[in-house]
């Protein structure tokens, strides 16, 4: 099967620091992958390169065989790569329903219209579907700034879903959450992935979560790929154990 997203020889430097050092990886259509690595390993930089927020110094990024490296963010979004942020990036003064309706309108290229009235009924209907999917229906009329932290993260993801992305990148969906909340969040993410059927890549620090739900795992360190494989392969990979934890993962988890 050909890959949905193919990254080849990607390099990005910040002054003397190589934040992304010759990274190559493939993501199969409909796969659920995790990217792990210590702080400063270049995980978020990697996402920023894929989504066009940063321009690569070298290397290619292909979505379904089309090179997207270095294109403007808005183009890449249109081509089918959505993203949610480490710190929930939302529209504070919009209600949940308004936010999603506006996102749907943007996806349908209807935001240029000055002669219609917001919201357009078709967009609202779609926004409601997404709210159901993301489990946000209970807060439809709540201004986003009043949502709980977890719901703000969910709304951020839901905004990306409104674009019907082929690839969804989640930067630490569980950042800043307590243990119980984390599991709820990640189950919700897994559910979304099953129902929508997109290619999902997420950055995560919690090893329990990563090993439980990711089909494949990539370990980044100092900007380059240290290891790649299934949960079982990563768990027993000596390089990962040495570099990432300095102790056996089983011990660390115990």
């Amino acid at each position: 099967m050909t890959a949905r997203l193919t990254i080849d020889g990607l390099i990005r430097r910040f002054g003397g620091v190589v934040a992304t050092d010759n990274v190559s990886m493939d993501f199969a259509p409909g796969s659920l992958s995790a990217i792990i690595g210590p702080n400063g390993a270049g995980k978020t930089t990697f996402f920023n390169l894929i989504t066009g927020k940063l321009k690569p110094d070298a290397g290619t990024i292909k979505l379904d065989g089309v090179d997207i490296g270095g294109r403007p963010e808005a183009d890449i979004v249109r081509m089918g790569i959505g993203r949610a942020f480490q710190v929930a990036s939302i529209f504070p003064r919009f209600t949940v329903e308004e936010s999603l309706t506006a996102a749907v309108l943007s996806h349908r290229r209807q935001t240029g219209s000055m002669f219609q009235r917001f919201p357009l009924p078709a967009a609202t209907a779609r926004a409601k579907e997404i709210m159901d999917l993301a489990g946000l229906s209970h807060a439809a009329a709540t201004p986003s700034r009043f949502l709980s932290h977890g719901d703000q993260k969910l709304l951020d993801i839901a905004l990306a879903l409104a674009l019907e992305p082929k690839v969804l990148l989640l930067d630490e969906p569980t950042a800043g959450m307590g243990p119980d909340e984390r599991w709820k969040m990640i189950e919700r993410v897994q559910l979304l992935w099953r129902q929508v059927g997109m290619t999902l890549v997420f950055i995560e620090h919690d090893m329990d979560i990563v090993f439980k739900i990711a089909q494949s795992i990539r370990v980044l360190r100092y900007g380059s790929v240290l290891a790649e494989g299934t949960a079982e392969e990563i768990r027993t990979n000596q390089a990962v154990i040495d570099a990432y934890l300095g102790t056996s993962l089983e011990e660390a988890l115990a």
Partner: protein
Amino acid sequence: MTARLELILGAVFAAVLIAIGLSLGDKAVIDVLMRLSIFSLLALSLNILVGYTGLVSFGHAMFFGFGAYVFGLLMQTNAISIPAAAAVTLLATCVWGAVSGALCIRLTEIYFSFLTLAFQMLLYSVIAGWVSLTGGDQGLMGGIPRPPFLGIDLAQPRQLFVLTVIVSVLSALAIRQIVQSPFGYALRMIRDNAERARFLGVPVQRYKLQAFVLSGIFGSLAGILMSLYVSGAYPNFAFWTLSGDAIIMIVLGGITVFLGPVLGAVLFQFLNDYINRITEHHGMVMGVVLLVIVLGLRKGVLDVLDEWRQSRKPRPEAAP
């Protein structure tokens, strides 16, 4: 609120204003209502940028001055009718707005504000300096001819008053339509979180420029009305203090509620007139009043009311 209801309310409002002005027949009342209409339109047009797009323009009066001078100069050629001159002026405003806006919107926050101020001072310098064309400090000399068109004679103060009210109310309805359209909500997305909007595929820079030009068009229209009203144009139409007044108006009335700038324009005019009457230390008293409002309320009058209304709505329980 539906568009139809707004149209009806707008028509009723215009009719009431016109009825008050014409029935009292007092020149002073008509003057006040015309000034209020014109400054309300100026404040509403600025709020497209400040309240809806999150771009604080310090140079909005440049459009007011631009409209007044271009229109006045066109009319002084005696070769063009009022509607045609107005249309040409608004087209020219589009060009000026697009050129100045294309540079301004590259910057954000205070840098944007200062660049708009710089463009305004550029225009002001041209107006004040190009004496042979504009009359310099004296303003456009000789009055602005107001030939009748379509049976309307704007040389008649009452007819000019009716037209000013109708144009202002129609413009307010048009601005309302724009900010309530999908485009208006895209502007709000940019205001709330431009980066997120960009990642949702919103063409942020293009929309900012469109908002800048639209805001300029309505500001210019206010300038045209002003030049008809005073039968002239003066450099202070394009001076930074008028931009400041427009900002004060929307801060007074509130930027989050559509009619906030209108209330602000009314409050500002009455405060101004009242203070002028009781003291010669105008700036000091006005400054104190503004400080009290800014520090005391920290918001415009309608913002505070809106917040209070929203806080009474029940919040949903925390996520299950």
